[in-house]
């Protein structure tokens, strides 16, 4: 049976996949999602919808996924374990599948202390690895945690994230192995600015044979300014922006910095296309979706394959 997940079809056919991120608005207006969807349509294989990222309340990921699906895109539902216990998570997995969503990305989520609800109770009933495992069991074995049978299993292509730049570095590839063992089928990584470090991580990933068991999509975030590069380097946990990149952004006048950011992103994508075991890119243009088509064309990733 042909899967409804465009992302899965693209990857299984051996194409270099392109996904992008779409952040829902801080309000109930569906037009924001629809217009972001229109910008991305045709340029990407699938669109990730973030789940209250950085712990800030936004329109729900599942609702935004449904809106994007109606626009003809293939959404990737991001699900964090921060806000929902295992009852709610499993229920939403079933609901997502029933609504025609075919991809899920399992994460623990940014800690609630970073967002606009710092007094919230962090749920973390299960962690991201356990979420991968439970979705996989629901889909492949038709059972929920505890063993109860589902009348109909969910149909989902299952993803997880990896951060090659966080500490302890030596353990990062091993942890990816755990996610693969738990059942992850595709991986989207943290934004890559330090290619040397990324390649060191990929060496370990390849040594463990993980690149043959899971599709790896390298994370790309085009920089808008030197200030953004500095902010990400210093203020954002788990982000590695080398001085070389910051200095390069600083070396051009402010009004040309966006273009420089795009150039760096194109060069990174080219390097990832050459890297063995990297199966695609995941573009997170934060509140800058309109840059994505330009970036994809310039990186020679357009047109997208017909699958």
């Amino acid at each position, binding site marked *: 049976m042909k899967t409804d997940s465009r992302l899965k079809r693209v990857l299984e056919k051996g194409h270099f996949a392109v996904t992008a991120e779409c952040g829902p608005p801080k309000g109930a207006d569906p037009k924001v999602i629809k217009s972001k969807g229109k910008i991305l349509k045709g340029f990407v294989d699938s669109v990730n919808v973030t789940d209250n990222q950085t712990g800030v309340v936004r329109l729900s990921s599942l609702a935004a996924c449904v809106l994007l699906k109606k626009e003809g895109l293939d959404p990737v539902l991001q699900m964090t374990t921060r806000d929902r216990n295992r009852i709610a998570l499993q229920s939403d997995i079933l609901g997502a599948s029933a609504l025609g969503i075919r991809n899920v990305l399992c994460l623990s989520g940014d800690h609630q202390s970073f967002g606009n609800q710092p007094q919230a109770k962090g749920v973390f009933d299960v962690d991201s690895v356990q979420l991968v495992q439970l979705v996989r069991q629901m889909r492949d074995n038709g059972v929920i945690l505890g063993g109860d049978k589902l009348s109909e299993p969910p149909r989902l292509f299952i993803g997880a994230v990896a951060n090659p730049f966080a500490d*302890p570095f030596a353990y990062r590839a091993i942890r990816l192995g755990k996610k693969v063992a738990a059942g992850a089928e595709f991986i989207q990584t943290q934004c890559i600015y330090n290619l040397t470090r990324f390649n060191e991580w990929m060496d370990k990933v390849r040594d463990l044979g993980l690149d043959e068991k899971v599709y790896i999509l390298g994370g790309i975030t085009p920089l808008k300014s030197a200030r953004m590069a500095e902010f990400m380097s210093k203020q954002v946990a788990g982000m590695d922006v080398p001085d070389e990149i910051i200095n390069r952004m600083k070396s051009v006048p402010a009004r040309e910095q966006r273009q420089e950011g795009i150039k760096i992103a194109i060069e990174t994508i080219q390097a990832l296309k050459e890297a063995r075991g990297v199966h695609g890119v995941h573009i997170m243009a934060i509140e800058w979706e309109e840059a994505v088509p330009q970036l994809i064309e310039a990186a020679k990733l357009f047109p997208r394959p017909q699958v």
Partner: protein
Amino acid sequence: MITAERKPLSEIKEMIAPYKKILVAGCGSCVAECASGGEKEVGLLASALRMDAKMEGRKIEVNEITLDRQCVYEFIDQLTGLVGQFDVILSLGCGAGVQALADVFAGVIILPALNTAFIGQTKEAGLWIENCRACGDCKLGYFAAVCPITRCAKGLFNGPCGGSKDGKCETDPDAPCAWQLIIERLDKAGRLDLLQNVYPPADWSKQQGKGPRKIHREDQSI
């Protein structure tokens, strides 16, 4: 031990405002160790309340007592015959102590002077750290005696998350990443193999139960 911190004087004053005869009752166990509810702290709080009333021209009577333990009946019994002489008991016990007093002396008003904080360790003089959430299902044996439920901000059984940098937690630059500690210790012990396991979700029913938990042992009953 169970750690606690004294409530601000303003909050305590507001609670005891309607009462004239006050018994400040300390506890000589955990809260004495963490310098929040022992004999010394009872004396300090009683003096502060007396002085404050004097400054404001109010007449109150404040007495002091410190029980060895406020959570065990045989020690609580010291208060029998005494509580009737007061309008209110201001307890410097933990939450368990306050409730135990109220349970024994039905009809007597017992008020908490402490905010009970956590189960922890005296790390150094004046520094207490949380290291147990009393989950009822100890897994320290798998995690090199570092509790991920307590010491990882996300309580991950399969950590670390992507926010660990230079051995610190993203939520607090002073807090070590629990998973960094776990990995380092398992490495030293030659047990990195334990990290390959995908640990299943916790059984929170052992912590949250069906409401409050209890331990009932026939062999200890008299």
